[in-house]
């Protein structure tokens, strides 16, 4: 019995060694290196640390959202309301600061607002488990954006950078390293640790693989979903604070399309939207790959629409390549057609 198990493990290891070059993470690392070589050959100043960190800071603001989004996708859910949550939280921050509250209170209000948005998503989804998260968050996406629009109308709320410490949230640096980069790394390690090294993280994979089985094995499925959706809201609040610190003014239509970018980052990182698959380092690599690719294309004056096109194409190609390989090896092994997805 034990020998059998051992043999199986050995075979699996050999297989994974063989397919190392077609593995997702390997593809991703190659892509990352290619992007960097390309950028460095375009501009001599690219590898200057100060410049590089300036470029990185801009996409870290939305990069945060990819962390809890990875949890949500591992669960087999999806959250389309993140962009609107960022907009609403930033709006609340700006409005409460300009109403005379101290900046510290405004920041707390933004965090609470984000958390509340996430909590509402979570409560609706766990009370009505028949509903798909896609359609509920589609509704709240419109609702949160609409509330921000109700509050601000066509105006903007500014003057946020007058508070020095708030300005420093985004712009402060320790040596050449921006503080936001350090915060990003700390959060990345924390999120990665929880996903891969704790019971909570294993629960996420279990739920993503089969919600019913997880439920019958005594995992509090709905509580965990509620926690994850609330976590997304909280991180959106953090992202909103950084956005406000970065830009200094807030309009209701900021952060549109963040949901698609965050999902692209996570999916490119190898986490399947079907749930239960993928790992966290892939997500972190793909945040940098997408961000630096955009920056490099911007350097050679590619317009933003073409950049979108290229990212869309990369997303599809990267997702398709491993699928084609699986399909081929499956037909070779069993002579039966691969199951459709």
């Amino acid at each position, binding site marked *: 019995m034990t020998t059998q198990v051992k043999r199986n493990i050995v075979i699996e290891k050999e297989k994974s060694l063989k397919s190392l070059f077609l593995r997702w993470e390997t593809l991703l690392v190659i892509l990352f290196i290619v992007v960097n070589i390309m950028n460095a050959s375009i501009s001599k100043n690219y590898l200057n640390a100060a410049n590089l960190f300036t470029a990185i800071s801009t996409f870290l603001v939305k990069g945060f959202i990819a962390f809890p989004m990875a949890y949500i996708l591992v669960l087999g859910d999806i959250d389309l309301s993140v962009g609107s949550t960022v907009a609403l939280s930033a709006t609340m921050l700006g409005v409460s600061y300009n109403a005379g509250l101290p900046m510290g209170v405004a920041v707390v209000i933004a965090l609470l607002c984000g958390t509340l948005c996430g909590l509402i998503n979570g409560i609706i989804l766990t009370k009505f488990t028949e509903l798909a998260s896609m359609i509920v968050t589609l509704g709240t996406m419109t609702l949160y*954006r609409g509330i921000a629009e109700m509050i601000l109308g066509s105006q903007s709320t500014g003057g946020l950078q007058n508070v020095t410490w708030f300005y420093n949230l985004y712009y402060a640096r320790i040596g050449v390293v921006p503080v936001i980069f350090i915060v990003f790394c700390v959060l990345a390690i924390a999120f990665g640790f929880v996903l891969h090294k704790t019971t909570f993280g294993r629960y996420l994979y279990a739920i993503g693989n089969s919600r019913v089985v997880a439920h019958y094995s005594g995992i509090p499925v709905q509580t965990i979903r509620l926690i994850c959706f609330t976590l997304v809201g909280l991180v959106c609040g953090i992202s909103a604070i950084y956005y406000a610190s970065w830009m200094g003014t807030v309009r209701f239509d900021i952060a549109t399309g963040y949901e698609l970018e965050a*999902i*692209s980052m996570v999916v490119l990182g190898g986490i399947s*939207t079907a749930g239960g698959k993928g790992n966290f380092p892939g997500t972190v690599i793909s945040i940098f790959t997408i961000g630096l690719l955009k920056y490099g294309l911007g350097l050679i004056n590619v317009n933003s629409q073409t950049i979108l096109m290229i990212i*869309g194409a990369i997303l*599809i190609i990267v997702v398709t390549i491993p699928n084609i390989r699986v399909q081929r090896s499956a037909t070779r092994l069993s002579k039966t057609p691969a199951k459709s*997805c």
Partner: protein
Amino acid sequence: MQSQMKSLAKKMRSSRELSLFLVLAILCVAVQLRNNSFLTSKTINDMLKNYSTTITLSLGMMSVLLIGGIDISVASSLAFSGMCASLMMRDGIYSSTLVMFLVSVGIGLLCGMLVGTVITQGKVLPIIATLGLTNIFRGATYIVSGSRWVSAYQFQSAFKQFAQTNTLSFGLINNLVFITIVCYIAFFVIMKWTRFGRRIYAVGSNPEAAAVSGININAIKFTVYSMAGAFAGLTGAMYTALYASAQSDMGMGMEMDVIAACVIGGVSLNGGQGSVGGVLLGALTMAVIGKALPLIGVSQFWQTAIKGLIILTAIIINVVTQRMMRKNALKEREI
């Protein structure tokens, strides 16, 4: 009398379309009480004309949702096909409105076939595939147009007149509304009485069972996504005819409206459930809300929030009624 009431109440609970129709009727009456210019033939005509694009596009989305997929690239393929067809008309390659519509449908069909190929051959999840292709189609629209508009003066005058006249139905109703009605009738027949339509439902409700019973699932999926693309192409032509201009950002965010219309109309996102009548009522509800809010004096800045609230309420009420229906069905069995 009482038994009649009871059976009516039972019918209401069991028929989604009927309850949705009642909600729509109550909505219309409520709006009419606030502003009596709502239920006039002019307002209704305007409403149907302006929302004919959303109402028609809902059909394509419905068929995709029925097989358990989703297509969020429809709005971008709408823009791409509408833009390409308009550019060719501007450059004088053709001048006939009919050819313009056919070209737009053709380009939309090609977009849909690309979506179908990626999903069936690449085995990519529909939401990811269409997410990527949304970016690609939208980017392609900006590139072919060079980020410029095709303005009204660059169109043939016959084309500009098309959306304002009643020629197709010999003076009965607006041309765009007529196209929408024809699409709905055709789709109703296809879904209800053809082998293809029933196969779509079969694939959606249980793919494994459908495959075992000899249905080529990939072929059905491919056809359905192509069909959704063709509808997007048709809607693209209607959109340009309606506004007599083509812009690169046209139809932005329309996929959300269309999905909302389908869900309000009772189409299940898990596939296999939903009817053409329900989708029509769902799309009309969206149109009435969109038209009525400004009429009853709601500030333009409040409209997005109210729309979101209505979508949420609709889907939650949907679940609650379904739970009640299931409970009632169990109760009846006990007796």
